[in-house]
């Protein structure tokens, strides 16, 4: 089978300071968040970030199966990242591959630090993320959706987690790389953090000087902060939709 070869060398990533999709270097793609989109799950969230379409569901705390996995003093957290066969350009065989195992692990480790697992000994909090359409940045989109789904499920947490990636393309540090920038760029660095700047996910591949790394961190951190505001807004708005006209609602202040 021969596909038309894609060669990044023909692409000019910047035109008059704007990227291929018209963004500036420090902008992330349009982000849409819908809370509570599934009936069976205890909590759920649908996220569109650029061309990414992911849906996260939380079940739990619930009984652990198989029993031997349970822990006497706290809930265990499981995270399963999975891509639908039709989510990528070339149809993917169903089922986990090595990449999805790694993504599941680091994503779980991004969320677990803020979950109060000691409240629910001998139970499991299951997080499932399905990528319905992939467009570079599925893991950060998944973590953003999972964080909202956890709140929607009533899981006690120290704070939300927000995720965003920075990259380097044509020697420029950019926020939230899109597909072409990810494929032909020089570095990709996804991070996740709490609103107060505690980093819970950090991965990087490519080449960055120390200076570039600092720039990329600053950019990604700012991206996460902005994404946090959108996550917050979506949760508050869902509540407003639920209540009748008589509900008294006002956003609380955040440190």
């Amino acid at each position, binding site marked *: 089978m021969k596909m038309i070869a894609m060669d990044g060398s023909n692409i000019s990533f910047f035109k008059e300071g704007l990227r291929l999709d018209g963004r500036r270097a420090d902008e992330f793609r349009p982000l849409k968040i819908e809370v509570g989109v599934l009936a*069976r799950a205890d909590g759920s969230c649908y996220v569109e970030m650029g061309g990414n379409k992911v849906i996260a569901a939380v079940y739990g705390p619930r009984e652990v199966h198989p029993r031997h996995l349970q822990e006497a003093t706290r809930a265990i957290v499981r995270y399963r990242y999975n891509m639908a*066969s*039709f*989510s990528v*350009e070339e149809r993917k065989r169903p089922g986990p591959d090595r990449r999805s195992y790694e993504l599941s692990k680091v994503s779980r480790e991004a969320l677990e630090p803020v979950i109060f697992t000691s409240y629910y000994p001998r139970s499991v909090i299951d997080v499932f993320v399905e990528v319905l359409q992939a467009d570079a940045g599925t893991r950060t989109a998944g973590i953003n959706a999972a964080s909202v789904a956890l709140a929607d499920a009533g899981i006690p947490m120290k704070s939300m987690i927000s995720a965003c990636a920075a990259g380097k393309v044509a020697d420029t540090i950019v926020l939230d790389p899109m597909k072409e920038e990810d494929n032909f760029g020089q570095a990709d660095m996804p991070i996740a953090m709490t609103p107060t700047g505690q980093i819970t996910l950090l991965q990087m591949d490519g080449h960055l000087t120390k200076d570039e790394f600092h720039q990329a961190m600053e950019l990604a951190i700012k991206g996460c902060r902005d994404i946090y505001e959108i996550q917050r807004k979506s949760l508050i708005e869902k509540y407003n939709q639920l209540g009748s006209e008589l509900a008294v609602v006002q956003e609380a202040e955040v440190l």
Partner: protein
Amino acid sequence: MTNVIAEIKKDYLYNLFLKGERADGRAFDQYREFSVERNLISKAEGSALVKLGSSQVLVGVKMQPGEPFPDTPNRGVIITNAELVPLASPVFEPGPPNETGIELARLVDRGVRESKAIDLEALCITPGKQVWIIFIDVHILDDCGNILDAASIGAIAALLTTKVPASKFGLGEDYPLPVKDIPIATTAIEFGDVIMFDPDSDEESIANTKLTVLSTADGSICGMQKSGTGVLRQEQIYRIVDIACEKAKEIREKFLEE
């Protein structure tokens, strides 16, 4: 993981059935509200999201050239798979499809294949060497009952929106996939000798028997499947088949309207 159903719930539902009622007020042959959203996955060649009551099923169609099967060198290939992902239900477990998932995929496939909705010979590119392979991937998102019918509607809806990606492979211009029929699955359950269509999760969990009928646009039957450990009498089966074809016709009409 199976959940024990409270006897009190079974009794309550059964008493309703005896009075000719269902818990949500529907008639025995009435389908829940359904909607079909098309082309929402741009990376796929065709896609459809079906909402049937609260059940949600997403079907994606991908196409790529490949080798034909040795015994059918001039015919395209259809491969249908269903993922009952754990996100969709507290009783779905991660892992390869179990017998329920495999049965669902094979039934959706049966509808498409036996109705000859897709002309497999027209999918031949170079006889004996290259044919189009169509992947129909069913992704269950929310199981609130009767995901099979939702999946079958989703599959044909996705196929109807599919564009053959010829240009991507240097095989000419893209063109809409020719679809010659609209096979639809309609499923009924039996409980305590009462028959009803489009079961929701509660009804499904107490049902003894299920009968699925796959029918084509002209009202012929192109597939059937009885599942469950109960039994059906001949006249029950005839009655189910009659109503099933009627319901399929209504659903098809709603399609062409949309």
